[in-house]
């Protein structure tokens, strides 16, 4: 078993037959990080506490109490709280902040005996699509280190792609798991909204945020998703908001939006996408064209609702109780000095835009209108998913771009134009690498609410030629 290429399931097998231990796997993870991460920069901290995790895992295995994730090295995005460890959302604003508690997803992983290897880089407060907007600097793409890893969970995607860990947690508000998965050639799942607890996730857009897995295979992603999903009665942020789709009328029918040209996808990506669809047809799937004109408006809807929620969520960062603080002449100047020096440019842009669209005089024209449009999008997608079992489209318009190539904020926003819809509707969506030469490109599947199993099945069929 070559560590860098092994799946979590391979590692599980090796742990069970005694050919490796959790402690050995952790050593391997640290070796890969030491050898490769100087040029990639996926990790912002490797946890010393992982040694204790590995010892506990080895004890669980010896005592025959192992679960599917016992002893498996897992990396965690820097916006998920791990008790006693620094967590910063890649922002100066949370410099030196140590989490007093575990996020629910971390509690779940601990119960399973997983080994939390370290925290991974991201765009500041998860705002961005390249992991360039980080106080720690850029995370580069393991397939070409002059290019970005995608974002905002770029560190988690790169950690999996470079072979440091088989599994990582990310968060997805507008594509932040799927887009870096597409750029780095990994599988990434955005689960159904509300299916995974957000307790201990540093909030960005609370009606959009969801934690999900990044992995090298669909089976591994399914393993991690099974481990983290479900409610936490004590600190609840899970909810069964959506009725499961009725029995799907047309199983194994893949709907493809007829307006991908208008949305804007590169020719090379369309060619790879069409080849992937062709291969799926050969495996017995039927391809149907679906009309979803509202898809094209996702950017306008999203970049009203998300900044609005971000401006509200990030109002708590005032330098009085934790994190970064800058002295001022009086209380108000301390707030202003702290926030102006603590937040990066992209975060400030979105807070101001969000404050604007929520302000008296603009609320109806922007925020309320966007909420109505969001509802129209949910209806359109639900209707489409009554006729087909899944929707398919490329995950990203093109491959990973070179560092610094998206200086204009609006050009960066356009990178998300195929992923925002799943967040706005709450639908689950998964990106899996297509078979391409050169840089990775992902195909995205979107299914009805709580039908993640359908997504994993499609992904398996893409991965197995």
């Amino acid at each position, binding site marked *: 078993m070559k560590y860098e290429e092994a799946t979590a399931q391979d590692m599980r097998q090796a742990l069970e037959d005694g050919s490796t231990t959790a402690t050995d796997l952790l050593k391997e993870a640290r070796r890969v990080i030491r050898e490769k991460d100087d040029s990639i920069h996926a990790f912002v901290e490797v946890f010393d506490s992982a040694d204790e995790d590995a010892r506990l895992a080895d004890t669980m295995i010896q005592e025959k109490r192992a679960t599917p994730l016992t002893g498996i090295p897992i990396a965690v995005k820097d916006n998920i709280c791990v008790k006693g460890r620094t967590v910063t959302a890649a922002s100066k604003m949370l410099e030196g902040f140590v989490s007093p508690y575990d996020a629910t997803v971390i509690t779940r992983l601990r119960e399973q005996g997983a080994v939390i290897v370290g925290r991974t880089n991201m765009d500041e407060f998860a705002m961005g699509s390249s992991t360039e907007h980080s106080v720690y600097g850029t995370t580069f793409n393991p397939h070409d280190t002059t290019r970005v890893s995608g974002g905002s969970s770029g560190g988690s995607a790169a950690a999996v792609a470079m072979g440091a860990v088989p599994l990582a947690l990310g968060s997805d508000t507008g594509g932040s798991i799927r887009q870096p998965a597409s750029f780095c050639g990994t599988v990434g799942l955005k689960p159904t909204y509300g299916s995974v607890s957000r307790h201990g996730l540093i909030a960005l857009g609370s009606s959009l945020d969801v934690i999900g897995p990044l992995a090298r295979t669909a089976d591994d992603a399914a393993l991690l998703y099974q481990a983290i999903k479900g409610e936490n009665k004590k600190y609840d942020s899970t909810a069964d908001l959506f009725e499961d789709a009725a029995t799907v009328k047309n199983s194994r029918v893949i709907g493809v939006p007829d307006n991908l040209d208008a949305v804007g996808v590169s020719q090379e990506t369309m060619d790879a996408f069409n080849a992937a669809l062709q291969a799926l047809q050969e495996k017995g799937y039927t391809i149907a064209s679906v009309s979803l004109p509202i898809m094209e408006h996702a950017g306008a*809807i999203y970049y009203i609702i998300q900044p609005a929620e971000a401006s509200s969520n990030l109002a708590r960062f005032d330098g009085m*109780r*934790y994190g970064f*603080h800058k002295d001022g002449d*009086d*209380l108000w100047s301390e707030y202003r000095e702290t926030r102006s020096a603590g*937040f990066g440019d992209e975060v400030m842009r979105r807070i*101001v835009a969000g404050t604007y669209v929520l302000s008296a005089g603009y609320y109806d024209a922007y925020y309320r209108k966007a909420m*109505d449009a969001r509802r129209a999008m949910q*209806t359109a997608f639900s209707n489409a998913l009554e006729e087909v079992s899944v929707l398919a489209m490329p995950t990203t318009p093109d491959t990973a771009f070179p560092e610094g190539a998206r200086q204009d904020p609006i050009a960066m926003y356009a990178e998300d134009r195929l992923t925002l819809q799943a967040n706005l509707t709450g639908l689950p969506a998964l990106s899996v690498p297509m078979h391409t030469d050169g840089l990775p490109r992902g195909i995205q599947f979107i299914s009805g609410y709580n039908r993640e199993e359908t997504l994993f099945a499609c992904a398996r069929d893409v991965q197995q030629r």
Partner: protein
Amino acid sequence: MEQDDISRAIHLSLFEKSDAEQKALHTDVEKILSFVADIQSIDTSTTAETAAKTNIFRDDVVTVPPGAFREQILGQAPNRFKDWFLSKKILS
């Protein structure tokens, strides 16, 4: 574009920047507002967002033992006085 209202949003967001930085931020927010202006072209005549709200709040009960995280939290305060966060004078 409503220049004064963007400046007001910057003020309400509690940001204080140099003139050049303020101008750059202003320009970027204008760009974002132009980008989302397309929202007006979406037909929402048949959707009623307010009808779809679901109450997901849990019962309003304290779920954390009193003082459970007090020291971990207060220990991170930039300025502390005994068991309180210390701030500059609020009332003048």
